[in-house]
């Protein structure tokens, strides 16, 4: 930090230099790279401190100043909305999609530190692009209980388990439809209550599966993940 400050006092305002120094100093907690860089730039008078007051940001800085996505963007967006601070959220490309799912929040995307610095100049004509996403429509599951023939007993057990949120053990010889039955349980359950909807995606986002979740099939398709099949 002291080295950086000396750099700045000596008049070095090169963005790449700042980025590379931050990269070397802060290899842990990479999401703080961007706020630190902005703080240093503000301290050296290169951006207006007042303009920083209405935004929150996170992002990892690459050696050349490019911004890299961070984990936990969704959790950050949810926390910012809950805090009711009326601030915009600036994030690197690659993690804005999941943050933009949170309605009622302005999320902007920056690919490079220099883009953000230009946007923060007074009377800037290069604002950062706003990323917006409508909540995707809930898609109907393609799995139907009707696909399973007979098995009225297990189907009854599935209905009871779905109604009460009860646990269920299916026992039987191979190939009798145990997996098929289990896969059709989500189709019997009512939608998750509104206040509980965010918990699993928030955990996933923090764990870094956010990129996968925002792929083409999106979070609205309820996937059954079985990473390795038995031979």
């Amino acid at each position, binding site marked *: 930090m002291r080295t950086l400050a000396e750099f700045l006092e000596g008049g070095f305002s090169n963005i790449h230099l700042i980025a590379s120094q931050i990269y070397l100093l802060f290899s842990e907690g990479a999401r703080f790279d961007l706020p630190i860089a902005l703080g240093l730039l503000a301290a050296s008078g290169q951006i207006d401190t007042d303009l920083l007051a209405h935004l929150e940001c996170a992002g990892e800085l690459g050696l050349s100043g490019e911004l890299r996505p961070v984990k936990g963007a969704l959790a950050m967006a949810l926390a910012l909305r809950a805090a009711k601070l009326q601030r915009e959220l600036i994030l690197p490309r690659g993690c804005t999609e999941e943050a933009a799912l949170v309605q009622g929040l302005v999320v902007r995307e920056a690919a490079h530190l220099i883009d953000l610095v230009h946007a923060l100049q007074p009377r800037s004509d290069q604002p950062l692009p706003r990323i917006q996403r409508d909540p995707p429509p809930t898609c109907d599951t393609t799995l139907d209980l009707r696909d399973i023939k007979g098995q009225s007993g*297990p189907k009854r057990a599935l209905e009871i388990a779905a109604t009460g949120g009860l646990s*269920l*053990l299916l*026992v*039987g010889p191979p190939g009798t439809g*145990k997996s098929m039955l289990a896969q059709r349980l*989500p189709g019997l359950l009512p939608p998750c209550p509104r206040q509980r909807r965010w*918990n699993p995606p928030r955990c996933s986002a923090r764990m870094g599966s956010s990129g996968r979740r925002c792929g083409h099939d999106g979070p609205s398709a309820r996937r059954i*993940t079985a990473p390795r099949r*038995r031979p």
Partner: protein
Amino acid sequence: MWARRAFRAPHHSASAAALIGGGSPPRPGEITLAQHGVLFLDELPEFQRLSLEALREPLETGRVHISRSAHQAEFPARFQLVAAMNPCPCGHLGNPHKPCQCSPDQVRRYQNRLSGPLLDRIDLTVEVPVLPPETLTGSADGETSAVVAARVARARQRAVDRQGCANGLLSAGQVDEHLRLEDEALALLHRVSARLSWSGRSFHRVLRIARTIADLAGSDTIAPIHVSEAIQWRRALPGREA
């Protein structure tokens, strides 16, 4: 979008840390990612013993504690467990169309991979039998998921209106408070409980199932018929003493 509940189906080769949570600093596992959703464990006896035993706490409390030398963490893990298994190593114990190849000792060792306390915490156990060929080649004539889901939603709403949550989320004390058990039904329960030597946990789990069956039947009280059906769903594994 995420109004649809999560469905997590980890393979049985998943590590205990991946399933329950772990690492340093501790990170949530599959059981937390399945929060308010479904966790499907196929081939249940094939999961690591450590993982299976670690499921006991979240199945009971809806939370999991992870301790490492440098970090402690508590994660939510309120998931609905669905598990599937064969009754024995060859899979055909109790199959009228194919004889079982396993010795009684092999069956016992296989089933013992699931401890009594773990099985005790699973509400319903149901046998999925081999069907005669004419059923499999016949046309599909069962109810659609939509029809069943509508029934489920109505019954679930009855429970929520009565006690604020689904029956599976009731603690033992809350079960007693919201039961509305008819006298004959209670007498039946006591008789069966004594004969089968049920634990207190088993008793309350049967009550939760009976309350759910009564909700599906649109009944305000739990009648003996609801209790009778509930008892059927608490059977032991095939070939295992109750």
